[in-house]
């Protein structure tokens, strides 16, 4: 399926199992993304909106969703690998100050939780796609951060997303151990 076909079929795909990114059984529930994705879709710009990597402070969760879509549909984009490497390096090099950086960047707690949960999902999916263990490693480290774990006030979808993601991570680790 090419970009145009995805764009043309997106309204129906959004509610179908043929769009695994939005399907809970794929890797995690993305109901929250689904909502924002539907809104963004009205501009039909999302699939082409991945620009040059700027600074982590300017990233929004839709950028990460966009990367996940590019990855899942194997849409070629010159910036994709550069984004992936930059995100990985940012998370690793700044690992102990990710939270204080988020405060510095002025993002709300929920925005930060959402971005990092999207990054974890992206890294796990990228690992499944490429078998690159460095991305799995960073995803595991991010999943350990207590401040990324959902709090009472966060939308239920984030909690679902996290729960399914953790189950998925455990499955991957079990498979690796038996490899």
């Amino acid at each position: 399926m090419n970009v145009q076909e995805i764009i043309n079929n997106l309204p129906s795909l959004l509610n179908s199992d043929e769009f695994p990114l939005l399907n809970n059984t794929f890797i995690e529930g993305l109901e929250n993304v689904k909502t924002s994705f539907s809104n963004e879709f009205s501009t039909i710009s999302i699939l082409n909106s991945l620009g040059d990597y700027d600074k982590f402070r300017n990233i929004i969760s839709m950028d990460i969703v966009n990367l996940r879509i590019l990855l899942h549909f194997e849409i070629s984009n010159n910036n994709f690998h550069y984004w992936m490497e930059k995100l990985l390096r940012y998370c690793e090099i700044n690992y102990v100050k990710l939270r204080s950086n988020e405060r510095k960047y002025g993002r709300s707690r929920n925005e930060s939780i959402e971005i990092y949960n999207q990054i974890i999902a992206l890294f796990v999916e990228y690992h499944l796609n490429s078998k690159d263990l460095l991305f799995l490693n960073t995803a595991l480290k991010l999943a350990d951060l207590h401040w990324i774990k959902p709090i009472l006030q966060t939308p239920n979808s984030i909690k679902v997303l996290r729960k399914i993601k953790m189950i998925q991570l455990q499955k991957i680790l079990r498979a690796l151990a038996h490899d």
Partner: protein
Amino acid sequence: MTNKAIIVFCPNPSSLYTVSVCELLMKMGYSIDYIIVRRFTLNRFRAEFSRDGKRLLSKIWKKLVLKEAAYPPGSNSLPFFRKKNDLRIKKVQEFKDWGTKIQYCNSLNDKNVEDVLNKYDKKLIIFTGGGIIRDNILKISGDGIINCHMGMLPRYKGMDLPEWCILENNSKELGITLHFMDSGIDTGDILRKVPVSLGKHKDIRSLRNSFEPIMVKSMVEVVDDYLNGRIKPVKQESNNRRQYFIIHKELYKIVNLKIKKKANLAPSQ
């Protein structure tokens, strides 16, 4: 034996690696002009804790408290190597008796380190740990600073490389690389690569312990060969390079599982 000053950068006053390298070099007839020792300050603890996390505590316990007692008895560990080579010096301070000057610093990039290096026109620096070296020191390092990296360059840059090799089912790439340091991370010119066999180690700790005597021996050999013109540094290829980061504890467990499996499958000798 050489008209160049030999200066050693040392991570702490009781580094077994540092004292072993220095004593072996002295046994070969070299004199060590200076040992520059990095103090263990609160700032250093904070910086290293932010990089290593909780495992820094076990590193401190092992390297600063237990020292030789941290190694299980075995033929492939550094204490065994020291015994075999009759290496008796345990603290950097003891080298004073052999005419070596000792300089303490809070960081290897400090002004007092620059002052020491500026005393010598011709010099070779041996790095045995102590943190990142900045441009101010690199610029005045004479022939350069030799480091022993625990991975095969250029493919394996960064940290926890024996673990990553095993996790990636690439144990034939286990080894060390002696190279000159430059401003990049593990990107300097290569002097020698030494492969290390996985052998029949039962866990990653035992494998890592087996690296240490090889690192000491290789460092001394490379310094000797370099000073006698028997080896020349070679530029690293920039393709196929990868930087690795600290490994997560779950993946670390898998590494140990893989080593155990291989040890059970390996034919007994």
